[in-house]
């Protein structure tokens, strides 16, 4: 089955070479980082996590988003998702691989990573995160591959696969819940210390994951003979739209609690993210344009995606998916993690700017994800097209 990834047109190979080039560039930057230390990044004593961990956090959401395809298809027998459920599972694989790579890139001593297994520590949320992420990767690799291989052979998949698929559904919820618990269980970081963090993570995940999937589906409609079908696309719009709405409702709740209570610790980070925070005669606001853009793209994207569906406009649909994906990416993949470090634990403000090397490594890990995604999707749609003759 894997041989299907080895045959393709010139466009396919150009894309593969493009991704490999980015991965190679990032690999060189990683050698630099490995030799110099994490000081080569923009992280500091005050902002100890940067783009690596924020990308990781966001991509856990993309991985969990696959749930929104698996659940309707396998639990509710929603047949119209028959062609894209596998795409959701394969997207989860690519996303989890990126998550694990981002964690590795962020470790000060990556060669000691297995200490987490050697000295298992159940009171650490990072220990649980490792378990749920690797478990989710395993479940999706096994289920996705087994189901697709059965289709390739023209038979129904084995019974045991079904049970693993059922297991993968709560498991998807767990990966993003535990990832939220990394943040919301830390005393002293007011911005993260909120019980609504896990629900908010899930809501944004269920919008961002399917939005990316729908976008890829629209691209594949242009570049391949594969069609996900109008009904499935329309249904995805419902899922994305409502999940995004829920996310912004949760964000609104955070705003209310902070600004109605007027408790400084609760307001500081939101001030910093959306208006700029004054401290010792200096205003710190390097994330303000991003956060405002995120808010704007989200609030435009939600009505736009429903309008796109009503008008059956592929162009508008793609645009609204891009807006929503970018909005949620900035919200969680930038503001959430970086914002948590402002103000510092000594009531100061330190701003973070990623370094060139850091951005290069980040781009390379994204490219690795898209590389895995491309290979898996190539196999999946070739098998699907073959079966349909």
């Amino acid at each position: 089955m894997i041989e299907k990834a080895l045959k393709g047109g010139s466009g396919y190979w150009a894309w593969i070479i493009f991704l490999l080039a980015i991965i190679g560039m990032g690999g060189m930057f990683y050698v630099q980082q490995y030799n110099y230390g994490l000081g080569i990044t923009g992280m500091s004593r005050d902002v100890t996590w940067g783009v690596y961990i924020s990308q990781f956090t966001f991509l856990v959401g993309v991985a969990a988003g696959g749930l929104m395809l698996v659940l309707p298809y396998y639990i509710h027998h929603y047949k119209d998702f028959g062609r894209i459920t596998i795409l959701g599972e394969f997207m989860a694989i690519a996303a989890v691989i990126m998550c694990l790579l981002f964690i590795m890139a962020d470790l000060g001593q990556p060669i000691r990573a297995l200490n987490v297994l050697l000295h298992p520590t159940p009171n650490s949320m990072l220990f649980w995160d490792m378990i749920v992420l690797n478990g989710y990767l395993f479940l999706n690799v096994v289920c996705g591959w087994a189901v697709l291989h059965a289709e390739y052979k023209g038979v129904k998949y084995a019974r045991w696969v079904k049970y693993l698929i059922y297991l993968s559904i709560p498991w998807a919820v767990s990966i993003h819940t535990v990832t939220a618990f990394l943040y919301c269980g830390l005393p002293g970081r007011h911005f993260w210390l909120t019980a609504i963090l896990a629900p908010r993570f899930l809501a944004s995940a269920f919008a961002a994951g399917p939005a990316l999937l729908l976008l890829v589906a629209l691209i594949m409609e242009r570049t391949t003979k594969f069609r996900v079908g109008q009904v499935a696309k329309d249904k995805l719009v419902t899922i994305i739209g409502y999940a995004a709405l829920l996310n912004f409702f949760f964000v609104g709740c955070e705003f209310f609690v902070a600004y109605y209570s007027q408790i400084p610790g609760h307001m500081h980070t939101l001030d910093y993210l959306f208006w700029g925070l004054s401290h010792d005669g200096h205003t710190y606001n390097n994330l303000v344009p991003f956060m405002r853009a995120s808010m704007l793209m989200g609030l435009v994207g939600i009505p736009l995606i429903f309008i796109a569906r009503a008008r059956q406009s592929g162009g508008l649909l793609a645009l609204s998916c891009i807006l929503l994906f970018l909005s949620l990416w900035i919200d969680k993949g930038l503001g959430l993690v970086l914002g948590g470090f402002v103000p510092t634990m000594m009531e100061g403000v330190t701003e973070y700017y990623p370094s060139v090397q850091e951005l290069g490594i980040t781009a390379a890990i994204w490219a690795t994800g898209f590389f895995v995604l491309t290979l898996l999707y190539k196999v999946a749609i070739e098998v699907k097209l073959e079966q349909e003759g």
Partner: protein
Amino acid sequence: MKKDRRDFLKVAGLAAIAGIGAPSAFNMLLKGEATASEQSAAAAGQGEAVAAPTGKRWGMVIDVRKFVANPNLPAKCVEACHTIHNVPNFGNPKDEIKWIWPDKFEAVFPDESHYKRHEALHSMPIMTLCNHCDKPPCVRACPTKATYRMKDGVVAMDYHRCIGCRFCMAACPYGARSFNWRDPRGKDENGNPFIKTVNPKFPTRMRGVVEKCNFCVERLALGQIPACVEATGTTGAMVFGDLNDPNSEVSKVLSANFTIQRKPSLGTYPSLFYII
């Protein structure tokens, strides 16, 4: 209709599984933490130990008045600690590593910093170091037990086990932890070593691990007091001792003075007390 019922049963079944699963997972989590503490109580130095009700329980009182009276004292404490522990100086705040340092009142005690606070509080040097909490959030967060709480109250680090994930730095509400962003054993562009003179009695660290004040655990083992306390000499600016011993100097100072702690509302139970 029939199909609807089947769907409902499946969803209900799934919900039930989740319902059963969640509490048991929670129990497991709690139990996990409990076993970790029990183990540590047995084999001292593992995981999160409960405060020892008997035996040694180290604590410190910092008398800020004495630091105000002796303006050269803060630098002396920092120098003593950082020299003994081979703390590198990178010369910039981004890579900075510090175990003990003087900071502003409003930075150390944000909850006590109301808008009519006394003029004297604005320039006061407050010595800041690891609080050696009874319930340390850093120890809870560490995924490898590289940082752990000993029975005598010291929160210590194993530099050889640390994977450099910096979860402890996010978890510490006191900003007490530093990370080796670059090789502390290296030299700057001009060839000056980051550690001016290496103390061979204490290990230097490697790149990519977290470090912090260790309450001079290596000196306590030899019956000595922490280096910063020693540097304050006879001023009484820092009093160190056994909190469980009612006759120790630290216990007497604590019972005779009004003291405050950093962020007590977080429930970390620091071993440091301040007289302002």
